[in-house]
């Protein structure tokens, strides 16, 4: 039987999820429930109805769309193959994001295998909250890990993401010890992840990791609010403002201070 996976989007010309020009597939289903999640449709492991509004000539059409579709890995790779010339030219490749791709290990493996058959560079965006055994199965097929790291204090982590962070940190150490290429991505959520305490703890952790070269700071943005409404989900950060540029630059300097390459945005 061919294994199928649940995805909710394929994005072409993705230029902030690994090197070069890439195509990113988004898996649906995530073990975390981050308050700031800007892809709330990525959380549930099932298809769900999304209400969208489109207007034409002043008339507004309310459309019910299904978010999420079950597909074979072959179908995904066929869509990605269309962009092969861009990967080749730019040193790009494919990125698997989500949701949490490692929640669908069989499908993920099949997709990675097909990508590697074609010689594509592969990047995996993960939250790290997965069983170590699952992670180990894919490491050989992944050229770059985009590793999401939010909070070092486990209690805080539990509060804002719904889970403790022990697995996250352990898996990160594991990848680091295996000598994998890792870019760490830190969402900058004002008052939550950008506190002095958390930033210092992150910095200390980074100093312990082997071969870590790059940090991506992902500033909070309010764009997600309407998505929650469309999904009839509760948005907990109603009044939060986006982090000011000065703050981002300040954080950038902190991590540059320990020899990291730091990008802002994504």
């Amino acid at each position, binding site marked *: 039987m061919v294994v199928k996976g649940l995805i909710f989007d394929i*994005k*072409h*010309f993705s*230029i*902030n999820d690994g090197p*070069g*020009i890439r*195509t990113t597939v988004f898996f649906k289903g995530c073990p975390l429930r981050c308050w700031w999640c800007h892809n709330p449709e990525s959380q549930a492991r099932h298809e769900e109805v999304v209400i969208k509004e*489109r207007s*034409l*000539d002043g*008339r507004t*059409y309310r459309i019910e769309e299904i978010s999420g579709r079950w597909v074979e890995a072959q179908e995904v790779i066929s869509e990605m193959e*269309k*962009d092969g*010339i*861009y990967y080749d*030219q*730019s040193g*790009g490749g494919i990125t698997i994001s989500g949701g949490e791709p490692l929640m669908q290990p069989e499908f993920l493996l099949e997709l990675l295998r097909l990508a590697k058959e074609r010689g594509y560079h592969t990047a995996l965006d993960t939250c790290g909250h997965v069983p170590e055994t699952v992670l180990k199965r894919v490491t050989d097929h992944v050229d770059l890990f985009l590793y999401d790291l939010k909070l070092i204090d486990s209690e805080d982590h539990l509060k804002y993401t719904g889970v403790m962070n022990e697995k996250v940190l352990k898996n990160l150490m594991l990848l680091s010890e295996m000598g994998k290429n890792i870019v760490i991505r830190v969402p900058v959520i004002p008052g939550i992840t950008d506190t002095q305490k958390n930033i210092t703890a992150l910095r200390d952790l980074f100093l312990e990791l082997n071969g870590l070269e790059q940090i991506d700071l992902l500033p909070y943005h309010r764009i997600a609010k309407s998505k929650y409404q469309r999904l009839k989900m509760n948005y907990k950060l109603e009044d939060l403002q986006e982090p000011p540029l000065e703050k981002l630059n300040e954080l950038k300097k902190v991590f540059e201070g320990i020899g990291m390459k730091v*990008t802002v*945005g994504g």
Partner: protein
Amino acid sequence: MNPRITKLREQSLKAVNRISAERALLVTEFYKSDRAQEVSIPVKRALTFKYILEKKKICINEGELIVGERGPAPKATPSYPEVCLHSLQDLDILNNRPKVSFKVDDETRKAYEEVIIPFWKGKSYRERLFREMDQAWIESYQAGVFTEFQEQRAPGHTVLGGKIYRMGFLDLKAQIRRNMEKLDFYNDPQAMDKREELRAMEIAADALILYAERHALELEKLADGEPDPARKAELNDMATICRRVPAHAPRTFHEALQYYWFVHLGVITETNPWDSFNPGRLDQHLYPFYKREMEAGTLTKERATEILQSFWVKFNNHPAPPKVGVTALESNTYTDFALINVGGLTADGKDAVNEMSYLILDVIEEMRLLQPSSMVQISKQNPDNLLKRAARILKTGFGQPSIFNTDSIIQELMRQGKSIEDARNGGASGCVESGAFGTEAYWLTGYFNLTKVLEITLYNGTDPRTGKQIGLQTGDVTTFTAFDQIMEAFEKQLRHFIDIKIKGNNIIEKLFGDYIPVPFLSLLVDDCIDNARDYNQGGARYNTSYIQGVGLGSIADILTSLRYNVFDTQKVTMDKMLDAVKSNFEGYDDLRYDLIYNTPKYGNDDDYADQHAVSVFNMFYRSVNDRPTVRGGRFRINMLPTTSHVYFGSVIGATPDGRKAGMPLSEGISPFQGSDRKGPTSVLKSAAKIDHLKTGGTLLNQKFTPQLFEGERGIESLVQLIRSYFRMDGHHIQFNVVNADTLRDAQKFPEKYQDLIVRVAGYSDYFNDLGKDLQDEIIRRTEHKEF
């Protein structure tokens, strides 16, 4: 920019467009003279040219380093009554219209009323042309199936090669003499025609030398009265330059540019050729002078920049000649499409990028002028650095430079039979048109409304706008049982209208060759002198006539919609579809919604839709390519609209892709505005599915919000995107970096955005100068990026 250039630039920006009767009066005077009646047509044209240059007012603007104006003052624009005669009503429209007016003073109006119109009425080339066209041509033209380039302007559309940087006009005269001596009246029945043409060329050559000398005299006069010793010396130096060039080959950087400028003025004074004229590969031509003088210490980078900037201002002083009739009323496009080429390959196939390439890009960025426009040629051999430099200028939101694929241009030209060296010495001019610079007469003959032909097909040969039967009866589409029947009917209809267009072209080209030869332009384009034949009669080494296909994205979407909705899914019957478009979707809101949002579209790298663009392109190619022209050349196709997609949309009713009646069509080979939803990589893939190498140019417009260009990463991604498109043989891509809010604000408060330049379609224009419909279209294109 130093104070001198700042001042010149401001003067140019502030100068008011005027119509000057000077040239028209001189031409009329000469045509009335006895001398004009005694000579052959080529000699008459040469003597007319000489008469103008002997008599016209010499204008030297304060502080400028390159001298010469086509009219009596900057932006004082001459008219060409022998080609196209303005009526008093045309003059009033030009004077009064809100956008890009050309002021007509009482004296000019009076000259038209009393002298120019009475003499030329019925004699102008334009009137002759319309008299010669048959009923089928007139009906198709009026229905908006095609336009005709040569109905108001002379054929031109050519670019100068490297000849003038090696040869003075005295050298050209010696070449003329040698050919004169070779004439064989015993065996060559055309010997007499050749002699007249060579005589005409000789007169034209003398005329320009004389014109330069008149500038020298004026400069010396100004130097005498000049109190500032520095400017006095400069004026004397400039006088020396004007005595040197164009008579002799240039020795210095300054001489090279002044020489080109005199030649430019000659070309645009002789007639009103399309796309003015253009120095083409300027970095290649100037670099040897620059290098030599920098080494000798007679030139500094600052001085070279200043001279180049002064040269830039000269282009901006020269708007395109004003139009007549309905085009005067509707078209606001008065930039003259001079397109400076930077980069590319040398004749022996090496990376041609040099220090001058970057210096020119600096000038482009600093000057921010509409004219001259600019482009960079990118071959696989050229460094990314050039592309990055270009991208950084694009990022400033000024729409220049556009980006061209040198390797494609070379293959296109070679496919048409040019030598590899001539192809490498070429580039693109006008909007996107490939040409062998200095050796080719490539005429654009008219835009062709592919979508209108499909509309006529859907109505079995009738134009629904007028109810007239103007096409073939290819069958009632409601009786068709397979989609392919539509394609077959369309191809028949297409061939029918292409035949009408080509018949017209063959008459028009002959008329031009016979009645308005251009001995001056013929001096400049090889091998007119050696062939002793005029540029307008096939004297150039290569002669090409183009028909420009318009609306590829729209027609692909219409065909896709018919295939998908009527045949494959059978969601709608053909009857219902036709009822919906006939009623402009009144009462068919839901259907229209489905046509727009739930139907496959060209531009998303989806073969289901893109196959129709490819089929239509191939049909268009087959019906035009390789057919002979009267000049001994071949017809070819290219895919560009300039602004005709707006006009062509205005003559088409609602269409099965959901487009409402009268709305603009897609432009170039770009997807219909808002139809591409999968990002730029998909657009480029779709656009590359047609075989660009079978064209003489395609136009792809992409808009990006400035955010995409942020940082090194943004620039790098852009570079790789372009490189990928070029690896797929894409011919050209251009970018508008703006956001919709800015543009909307500009619509509301035009006074705040007077310097806002946007890429329209193959060229840039001031946003404020565009009609509201075009402004709206550009806003829609921008917005689409954001939703």
